[in-house]
């Protein structure tokens, strides 16, 4: 019997090597450890062994059994690895095949730029006010110190609905509504659609503006430049500078035109800045005392600054768009290019 055991041990080692799948593993188990396997058979044969040899033989058989069980466990984990890797291989894809996309959409570039400007000013404590698009003459012109005979009111610029009602030509109309509703300190942005009777590559009869207004004690022209510096750095990069130069708007005095140093060439001069090194981006100034008075705010106590940005203009500069009409044609090939 001793020799039988040795032969079995050798045989088992041979069989173990052949185990390479779940099936052969199961066959191995049945061959040696299953109910009708060789180990249980040997245990049965123990009855035929002389009683004095039984304990020794029993021990030897038990050792063999343990040995085979361990071998089986090893084989089991090896088979698991083999199966996993063959499954992985079967499931392997050509990762260079085209992606399957559930295309996400996009926000309009005007919304993106608008939100970017809002983010800058929200941090400075500006609220967002949206006034009516159909305005009356009083809010859009008279109370903004645009006198009756000012060219800006001419029929060729303004769309009129009645003698009194019109499509607002500027978000500045919102200044008046805000100052009527709130008392200083006021920090507000007024974004929205505006309308002018004009149409070419850089003018659309409808476009978007963002008005900014601060009214508080001790507000100066220096604050205007400081605020706009911050805006321009956020929009065009940390290295840009701003420049103020005299201009004229009836609702501000002094009035300024604000240029930003060309972010394309760094101010050296290029096609974008028409070789001047500067790009005109917005207008603003110190709120005209008459406008404050018109809203019941004492101009001897409070002062204000205001500015107005054309959102399309900023978007055109930022993204290199040369025709304003593209914003309103809504071609998906255009719209999908913009990321918030």
């Amino acid at each position, binding site marked *: 019997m001793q020799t039988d055991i040795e032969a079995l041990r050798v045989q088992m080692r041979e069989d173990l090597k052949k185990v390479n799948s779940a099936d052969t593993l199961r066959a191995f188990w049945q061959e040696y450890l299953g109910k009708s396997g060789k180990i249980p058979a040997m245990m049965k044969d123990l009855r035929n062994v002389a009683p004095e040899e039984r304990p020794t033989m029993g021990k030897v058989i038990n050792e063999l059994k343990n040995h085979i069980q361990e071998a089986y466990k090893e084989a089991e984990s090896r088979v698991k690895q083999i199966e996993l890797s063959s499954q992985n291989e079967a499931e392997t894809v050509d990762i260079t095949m085209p992606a399957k996309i559930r295309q996400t959409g996009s926000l309009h570039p005007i919304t993106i730029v608008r939100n970017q400007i809002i983010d800058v000013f929200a941090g400075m404590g500006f609220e967002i006010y949206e006034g009516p698009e*159909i305005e009356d003459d009083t809010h859009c012109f008279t109370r903004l110190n645009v006198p009756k005979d000012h060219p800006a009111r001419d029929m060729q610029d303004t769309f009129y609905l009645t003698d009194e009602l019109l499509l607002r030509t500027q978000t500045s109309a919102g200044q008046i509504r805000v100052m009527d509703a709130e008392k200083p300190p006021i920090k507000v942005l007024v974004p929205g659609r505006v309308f002018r009777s004009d149409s070419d590559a850089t003018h659309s009869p409808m476009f978007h503006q963002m008005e900014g207004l601060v009214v508080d004690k001790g507000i100066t022209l220096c604050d205007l430049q400081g605020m706009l510096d911050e805006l321009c750095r956020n929009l065009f990069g940390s290295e840009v500078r701003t420049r103020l130069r005299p201009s004229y708007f009836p609702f501000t*005095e002094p009035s300024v035109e604000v240029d930003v140093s060309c972010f394309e060439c760094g101010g050296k001069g290029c096609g974008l800045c028409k070789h001047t090194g500067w790009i005109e981006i917005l207008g603003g100034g110190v709120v005209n005392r008459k406008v404050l008075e018109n809203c019941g705010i004492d101009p001897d106590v409070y002062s204000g600054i205001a500015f107005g940005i054309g959102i399309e203009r900023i978007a055109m500069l930022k993204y290199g768009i040369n025709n304003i009409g593209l914003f309103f044609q809504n071609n*998906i090939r255009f719209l999908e290019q913009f990321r918030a």
Partner: protein
Amino acid sequence: MKLPFSWLKEFVDVDITPEELETKLFSCGFEVEELIRLSEGISRVVVGEITHMEKQEGTDHLYLCRVNCGPEYGEDLAITTGAPNIFEGAIVPVALDGATLPGGIVIKARKMHGIMSNGMMCSGTELGITDDMYPGAEVNGLLILNGDPNAVLGRDICEVVGLDDVVFDISITANRPDCQSILGLAREVAALLDKPLHMPATDYEITGEPDPEISVRVEAPDLCPRYLAHYVRNLRIAESPRWMKRHLALMGLRSINNIVDITNHTLLEIGQPMHAFDLDHVEGKSICVRRAAEGEKITTLDEKEFTLNPNNLVICDAKKPVALAGIMGGLNSEIEADTKELLFECATFARDCVRKTSRALGQVSDSSSRYEKGVDQFGTELGLRRALHLIQELDCGDITPTAFDCSAAATHECMTFKARPEQINRVLGIEVPAETMIDILKRLQFGIEDHDGEWTVTVPRFREDIEGVPDLAEEVIREYGYDHIVPTFLARAAVTNGGMNDYQKRQMALKNTLSGQGFHEAMTLSFYSPADLDRLHIPADAPERNAIRILNPLSENLSIMRTTLAPSMLTSVVENLKSGNSEGRLFELANVYIPYSLPLDRMPDERLTLCLGVFGPEEDFFTVKGVMEAISYVTGVPFTYERAQVSYLHPGMTAAVIAGGRKIGVFGKLANDVTEELSLAKDDRTGRNIYLAELDYGALDAMIDENYHYVPLNEYAEQKRDLALICDEKVTVGEIEECIRQANPLVAAVRLFDVYRGKNIGEGRKSMAFTVTLSDREKDVTDNAAQKAVHKILSNLKFKLGAELRQE
């Protein structure tokens, strides 16, 4: 406004280059839009003399000349010419080999009929000049320079004919009408360079006796605050002197005769429009400024007839209008070559009146555009004096003592106000020294009386834009330099809370959700055409037809304020299809404009509206319904759907969206007949799969509950039962769901998972399978309870809808 450098120098001793001046003007508020060099394009053209000429052999009109261009360029150049006016000894412009002429012309030495010609002799036209710029420039042939002491052989021609000049084209802001003249700009330049301003001469002598018959009166002083007139007799109409012709030419005007030129010159130089009436044609020798009578007619100098009304101001004689005030004179009183006596008009007219009349009649002139910008009363006086001086200087008439000043509504006093330097610094935010301010303001001709820091400021009469301290602040900083401003970051402002409000944030959340659903945000114009409503088959009596009309639209295509976004969205979808985008999803969140009444008597309701446009082969009614569910989910407002009829949507594939018991919108497939009429190729099949949705965003937003609480998760066991039901084809999923929900309070969810139609079920019938979830928030749902519930559900289904459990 054009400003010739040479004319400017008559008023100010400018000692810097045009480029330096351009930079300085820019920084003080005068942007030079163009720096026009008159010599642009002309090079290597010099003065030469024809020393010898002979007919060239084998030609009938060409001459071979020997030309002396001085020692530097050659004293014996052979040049061929065909010009008819040449002679030996003629001094002419010579374009040398390699010379350039305006229009990009390059002159090269070349062989003409076998003989080398070393350049070209030029006409005035080839140099781009007119008679007014240089006498004889327009003759047929070469420009003859004989007699001009400047025409030294070899000298650059530009220096000889006055092309060595620069014209600035300056953009003038609307608050500075006083700078719409050479004098006005010269005044600014003098202040800028701190140089004296040489005022133009305005002295003249009065001769002869007055004419008591002439009368002038103003009946509409509100429209004509100042009207000056002066009688000039014994006119000697002739050509203007060369300097005046040149001034006019530099500004783009042609010389007519001395009298007309004086009026034009005064307009350009002083900024004061003038008019001269032929007194022989002014009936009754009487001038009256009044509103036109209704239907009154006038024919202006350019022979156009206009019918007037009382909004128009006219200058009349005893019987009829002789001029349209501030715009143009009448043909009947025009100055002609034989005019003997004239009455000069120099007036201030209300700019609004001039503009309105000019626009209404479509009649624009240099004078009217000047009045529209604003003419100050200071200039009115100065203008007349200058014109009379020129009459005397040019010796073209006798200045009589008969003069009129109708200035009932005029202001003669200079405006004054009090100011303190620290008030100015408070506007600017920097500390400009008081002496610097005083120096700047005095240079700009302000009067400053300083009483221990309390100033009395006298505003120059031509500065009608100056009203107070902020204006002074602007004057100071634009001369002192904006680069002195030190950026501060709202240094002294109160801290405030900022950002979007909840309503604005909810809109952004919706936009982001839609973008996540594959939608691209669109923006379309707020106005369109009534034809856009026709295209959507919107009936003539539908509420959408009550749209606000724009009184002055750009075109009929953009003439009404939109009452629905669907037409704009459809246009965007069609444009995408046409450009080859076969599928896509678009949304727009924008206002529609609903009038409370028409004609409009108050501000309308601006209703924020959400519109969706969905197209492409992968889309169907239910993908769009899925988007509605996503909107419902993100807003937390439950939607239900009802079949609906909309003129432009498919009658079988349209639903109304119901929320909070009211209809807040519709969606569906574009109706077949509407699709059929789109301007799309007939075989464009993708184009036939278009869906539109429109929701009242304001109504939806009002139902959003921001203060919701969480619902505790149910810890008790639920039961699920699948029910396959057979019913009539007409029974809807919605009806069955509703019936199941109503049957038993344990029903927590009903979900359709299969629909089947087949012969074994029978014609006109269908099988629908639902999973019903039963749950109780207080205890486990037992098998027994579930069985009872299912029993009740099935009996209700059978009784109410005739639906029965499908037998396998």
